[in-house]
């Protein structure tokens, strides 16, 4: 029985692989040199990054700190509206200080229900239609973005911050939590705090469009795969008010992205140098500092369960959040 399922899946995978190969056939064989030249002419310049010496780092930072910001999301329950999310955002400074913010998001609460309705009405006026479920998802996403921005703002207010590293693209914050984003942006500019978003999973399709019509629609991550040398960066501009760069800080051929404020573009090089310096050479290309923050903000599944068990009425918990699916034993 099990064998039969596996055999079928195997067949499917083989044919899937073939179709992928067909689709990418032409492109996978890009001439790397040719592509680099075209990128150079039509997109932006390549820069070689440095690994900063320890002395250089200390001098550059003087008495200030680097802050990493990340958020985490844990879900209890499965289907709308019978779930709850535990949201956490953490700003961690290199001086071993933390600012933590947390929220619970649950569509079952009256005020959240009202918020969902209000959001749908608002969107409808702009001509967009959202189901309750989609609206809830949007609200929750924006709540998390807001929490992250808030801890970042507090960090600037409390600590002598040189640079804030956010996990993910800055554009996401602008879209998901406009007001808080504005606030952070202004504060950062006013206090001269450098802001950088580090994007692990690049999802844009910017480069192909600029290069030629036959490359249109290809994801940037596919196009740049293996094209940059280790420690190389490609700068470009396409997001409103932001400056973007792709770089390959480790041996992993996959590139990562950086977003910075346009106003701070003269500092791009040093920011990228820093990112590169803090990224393990043989790693997957993410600065260790962000990994540390990520690790710390994340709540383990076990912890979530025990928190929920301790603080939720077991009767209610079972009635509202237990799902048949969860009870299944695999």
């Amino acid at each position, binding site marked *: 029985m099990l064998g039969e399922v596996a055999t079928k899946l195997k067949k499917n995978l083989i044919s899937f692989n073939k179709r992928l190969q067909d689709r990418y056939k032409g492109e996978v064989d890009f001439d790397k040199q040719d592509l680099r030249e075209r990128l150079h002419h039509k997109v932006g310049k390549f820069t070689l990054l440095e690994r900063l010496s320890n002395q250089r780092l200390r001098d550059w930072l003087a008495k200030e700190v680097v802050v990493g910001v990340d958020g985490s999301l844990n879900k209890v329950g499965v289907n709308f509206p019978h779930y709850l999310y535990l949201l956490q955002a953490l700003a961690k400074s290199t*001086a071993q200080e933390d600012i933590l913010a947390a929220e619970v998001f649950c569509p079952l609460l009256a005020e959240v229900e009202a918020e969902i309705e209000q959001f749908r009405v608002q969107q409808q006026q702009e001509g967009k239609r959202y189901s309750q479920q989609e609206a809830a998802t949007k609200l929750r996403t924006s709540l998390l973005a807001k929490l992250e921005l808030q801890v970042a703002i507090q960090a600037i207010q409390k600590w002598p911050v040189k640079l804030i590293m956010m996990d993910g693209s800055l554009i996401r914050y602008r879209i998901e939590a406009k007001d808080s984003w504005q606030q952070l942006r202004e504060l950062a500019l006013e206090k001269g705090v450098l802001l950088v978003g580090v994007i692990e999973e690049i999802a844009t399709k910017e480069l192909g469009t600029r290069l030629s019509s036959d490359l249109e629609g290809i994801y940037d991550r596919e196009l740049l795969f293996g094209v940059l040398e280790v420690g190389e960066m490609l700068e470009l501009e396409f997001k409103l008010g932001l400056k973007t760069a792709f770089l390959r800080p480790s041996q992993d051929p996959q590139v990562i992205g950086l977003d910075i404020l346009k106003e701070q573009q003269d500092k791009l090089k040093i920011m990228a140098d820093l990112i590169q310096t803090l990224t*393990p050479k043989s790693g997957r290309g993410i600065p260790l500092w962000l990994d540390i923050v990520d690790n710390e903000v994340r709540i383990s599944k076990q912890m979530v369960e025990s928190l929920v068990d301790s603080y939720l009425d077991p009767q209610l918990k079972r009635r509202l959040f237990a799902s048949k699916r969860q009870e299944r034993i695999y």
Partner: protein
Amino acid sequence: MQVVGLTTQQEVYVASKERKFRSNEILKILDSELDNPLGEVVETQSYNRFIPLSIKDSFVDKGVLESLRSIGYNVDEDEINIAKVRLLTEATYPIKTGVAAEVPAFTEVKELLVKESPAEGLVLGVIKGTEEMAAGMDDDLKDVAPLLKGKEVVAQQGVPFNFKLKAMHQYPHIGIIGGSGSGKSFGMRVMLEELMKLEIPTLVFDPHFEMDFSEKFPDLPTEYEEDFESKFEIFQVGRQVGVNFEDLSTKDLLDLLSAASDLSESMVNAVETLHNAEAKRDSFFTFAERLADLRQALELGRKRIQRKLKSGELSGQQKEEYQHYLALIDDYGSLHLSSITGLTWRLNKLKRHGLFQQSISEIEAALQSRKLVVVQGPIWLLQVFATYLLGNLYRQRRDYKDADYSGETADYFPPFLVATDEAHNFAPKGYDSPTKRVLKEISQEGRKYGVFLILATQRPTLLADTVTAQLNSKFVFRTVRASDIETIKQETDLTAEEAKRLPYLSSGDAFVSSAIFGRTMAVRIRVAKTTSPHTQNPFDELEAKTKAKEDELYGAIAKHLPIYDDDMLTELKAVNKELEGKMLSRNQLQDRLETLVERGRLKKEDSPLGGTVYNLG
């Protein structure tokens, strides 16, 4: 400090970023619905989430860690300390996750930790993990248990561990278990010092000749010094103490002889027949003579004796002798010559070691005056003697108590403790031995009469189960051997975690599993106030002796330098005069001179007169 993760009614995990946990410290869990229960740290862990594991799939390389450090972030500090805490009493439902935990104040745990005042109990050391709460202690608990750290005596850290001696009435007998070098003898010494402090009559069998309390512990600050000189006496078996043969019952004698070497059936039979055979108590002399005569008689044989008597060639005294032989053959002819020979050999062995020269009266007197008595001897002789001595003293105490219970008057004999190292030799598992019988009896019945045991052994597995089972308090020191750890697990209430720690304990650290405390306590034994007379390293001793000899010679010849080798004989006389009682030959002197040259204390030069000359180096 905060409770994290899953909790049960028995156990919780407490985590802290700032504070490291100590094994065995007591924490208060602030779950008010459960009345803030107390728990003991049974396992500690510190871990750093970033070293040395890889995070997700990226290995952390050194360079990056260095860079992070340069921007002020030290990964090493990002450490989380976690303690597994076992509640002292089971909670009615699981502890709430997330509640805080704190170090309790001394008053909150006093009852758990202090069962007796230092003045009344045995102050044996400190309770581990109580360092932080010790500040709030009553004054009489402070500064009573200085510790030894390396070679240095340091102040008491934590709450003192006071063993409630009076509770032995209810929970008798102490075991001291641990591998070689784990601190048993040291712990025993501390225990004995405390017994002397309280002037408890104590009998110590000392097979290692180490229990002397005259010498103060090196570098012990004067405020801790204590003079035990008037509180103990040392006796050596066969020198100052021995067995009074006339007091021996036949059973005693059998025990003694069998301790010298095992007895055969027919030897036992022979002793039973021959001892006190003439309706009065034998002295050593009368008994030994009877054995010798019988042996002679058996060697001659009835026929030869009769023939000799008939032959008429015997003079008056010889005739009497042969008539005596004949009478012996008549009475004991059925005994085997080989048994008699064997018994003679055993008896002589005991005599040779002086066993029958003295009595135990000095020991009795010392115990009566509440002293500690150390009995020394080689282990086999000690066993022989202990069998007799213990049987005797125990009987005296029992007779007194039995008489007392039944309202009669009897001579007073005080309650007493018996302490011995190498207890598995005295009460071995698996085979019978005379000492085992008496120790077993005391272990089972001693409580009634106020006779208690302190038994130390490095091989609990070899100690008789019946005795082990009666040890209500056990001090378990470092133990590495798996079979012994297994025995300890069975015979104590050490938890699996504690048993796991046994191989790693430092010398002087022990778990005390005692019915008196009702739970296992981790303690560190205090520094002893006295030291064993032969703690000197034998190799240091060797060096020191050589040096002393050399110094003596050097002193003797220094005045006579320079010494010319062709004039050595003249100098030899002078040197020999200086060396009291020793005479060196010419060659020996030259030999020694060469040695001193080798050691750089003299130098050897060509003499301007020809030959060589030894002179100051």
